């Protein structure tokens, strides 16, 4: 199992779309607290690979292989039990809930005590510099504020891995740098194995982790090759 006890691992994973090969067989291990970047042109199936990991693949796709999280096979679990957090291009804050209620939605139900729930939500708000925004409608927040709330909502659900589906691409340049730092900082602090999908080399550079090109041939290390969590180490 090498270093993957707390990590995210893909074994012999492959995707087809309407029967045509999309992503060739690949093995990949992401250790806790590390960010692995997957790059490729749009339409190459990198987002679909994330959908396979978190269990939201639509029926048009067929997938093979296993997803292991902390050494446990989660491939057959319904998505709400996988404990895989994901951020998309859009923040997808629920428009019918206030900022605080959005955060509380992420909090596991196992946290029953109401005061404790409120405490955690407010801690998250403070984390995002949004202490005074608890009862606000998400629509009244700025883009950067919404992005931060979306990340903290994901983290409140206590995920064991984090998937990033181009979450920086819709933010403008200055904001993008800051939010990128915010996300990677939290991922590291929570020791989350993180899988980032992007077509922006700047994202990959900022992630300062191994970067791969994906396609029908599986994984190919990106230049300049960095220190790798070598694919297949766990196999």
């Amino acid at each position, binding site marked *: 199992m090498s270093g993957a006890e707390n990590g995210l691992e893909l074994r012999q994973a*492959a995707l*087809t779309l309407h*029967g045509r*090969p999309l992503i*060739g*067989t690949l093995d990949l291990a992401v250790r806790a607290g590390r960010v692995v970047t997957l790059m490729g042109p749009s339409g190459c199936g990198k987002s679909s690979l994330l959908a*396979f990991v*978190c*269990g*939201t*693949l*639509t*029926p048009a*796709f*067929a*997938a*093979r292989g296993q997803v292991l999280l902390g050494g446990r096979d989660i*491939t*057959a679990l*319904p*998505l*709400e*039990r*996988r*404990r*895989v*957090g*994901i951020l*998309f291009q*859009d923040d*997808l804050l*629920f*428009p*019918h*809930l*206030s900022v605080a209620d959005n955060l509380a*939605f*992420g909090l*596991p*139900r196992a946290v029953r005590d109401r005061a404790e729930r409120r405490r955690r939500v407010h801690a998250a708000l403070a984390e995002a510099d949004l202490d*005074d*925004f*608890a*009862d*606000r*409608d998400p*629509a*009244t927040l700025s883009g950067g504020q919404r992005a931060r709330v979306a990340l903290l*909502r*994901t983290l409140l*659900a206590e*995920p064991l891995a984090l998937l990033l589906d181009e979450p920086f691409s819709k933010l403008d340049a200055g904001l993008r740098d800051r939010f990128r730092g915010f996300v990677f900082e939290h991922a590291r602090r929570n020791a989350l194995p993180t899988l980032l999908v992007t077509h922006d080399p700047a994202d990959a550079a900022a992630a300062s982790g191994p970067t791969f090109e994906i396609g*029908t041939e599986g994984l190919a290390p990106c230049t300049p090759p960095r220190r790798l969590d070598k694919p297949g180490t766990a196999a």
Partner: protein
Amino acid sequence: MAETVQQLRPAPRPAAPAGAASGGILRHVPALTLGLFLAPIAAGIVGTWLPAFGYLPALGGETLGLAPWRALMAHPSVPGAVRLTLASGILATVLSFALAIGCVAACHGTRALTRIQRMLAPMLAMPHAAAAIGLAFLIAPSGWFARMVSPWATGWTTPPDVALINDPYGLSLTLALVVKETPYLLLMILAALGQSRANERMAVARSLGYGPVVGWLKTVLPAIYPQIRLPVYAVLAFSLSVVDMALVLAPSTPPPLAVLVYRWFNNPDLALRFPAAAGAGLQLLLVAGAIAAWRGGEALAARLGRAWIAGGARGGSGQRARAAASAAMMALYAMTGLTLAALAIWSVAGRWRYPDAMPGAWTLDNWARHMDGIVWAGGTTLSVAVAASAAALVLVLGCLENEQRQGLRTLTRALWLLYTPLLVPQVAFLFGAQTLAVRLGLDGTWVGLVWSHLLFVLPYVFLTLADPFRSLDERYVRTARCLGAGPARVFWRVKLPMLIRPVLFAAAVGFAVSVAQYLPTQFVGGGRFATLTTEAVTLSAGADRRVIGVFAFLQAVLPLAAFAVALAVPARARRARRSPEPTP
């Protein structure tokens, strides 16, 4: 490589139901729904066709034969009734269709269309019976219009003896149908526009030098017609078989076929049930024939249209067409507004001499004197409408949620099933459905009444809710699931609150449809239930206008109130959240 990938097994279903119990029930909702509304119609048609050929053991009809049809054909009223039915029904459909199409073609992309669209809901909310009664109040020789121009313009000091309503050609009925059906077709056209990239088509057509109206007819209409085909057929079927409006506005010697058949079904002479059943069968054939003929017309229009399009005529600026279409729509809207006003004023009128334009005295006596009837009929109307629309909402949401969880695709054929209750004339199956209700012990019960309304409420609720439900951004659902929420929690906490506007709107549509029902109440209610609709229609046969005004006004106002609530509640909740009040 390719071979290995070919052998991939499908990914495990991510949407596997977490709560097995709820998933289990949910799975059966579509079948239950179809059964609930197709079974009575199928049983109803069979139960009507059997007596049409003489088989109705309860009344001594033991052998099959053509006697009922012979009796029907020999009846002196039938040829006239068929002529009247076809003339008024087809004319009303053609006019409504032309008006609705003309209006959208002439006003596409203009503010006028936005205005028309915004005022659509109150137009749709008006029940047929109230619209017919109100129209009679307006255009009758003793009606409001005559009073407004008398005696100074007409010289009339007593109502003139001309048949402005119940006219032998059914023109007043046709007019009332046009007032009611045009807004419905408009709504359907506008909904279809949203899915056909109409703006881009128009931009292309205009840049090629086509005028706005001709451009719309040549590039947008062919694209949207397949989507409005079923609604058009529903309008055709309804116009050919309407009973409540015809009781108010159509001539009585002979009446339209549906009314004639309905009278025979209600006749104390039980022997008339047989020709009545044959008449109901004829009604079904008339509607089927008219739809087939319309379909043929479509093919012809398509052939001529293709030649017209290929001819390349560009058309003019469309200014005049726009003015005419706006004026026609405004006239329809004004008519509906005046209808409501006329009902309201008559309901509180005291002394009102002809030809005064306004009552000489106002009073609430009309209301006070009929308070018992109002409470009873109003209570039945309300309870049945609430129950039927709530049941429809539960079934429709169950079907849609099941469809999403199972990842099912929607079929066009399923849409035809949904339209069945709107295409089959009510009078053609309600007698048989009543027989079924008797078998089940539901005849004349409140539950049976709710069920009978559900048949017509359900399709409208489904048609209203399906698009918004299916087009909800499913990434919200995925996000919620990735945050650890199971399918049930996602449904209650994410989907339902996000869809609260369309859900309440669909409930209001269902409510309005139930309030407007006349024939199902009469047949399945077994005469034991009076609603505002049945009271208003019954009274319109000769009671005092003040009393009719009370019941018809209430009937018209109930659906309006439902729409107002459906629009106001989400707007209020939204405002409450939008007000920026940073918590201390």
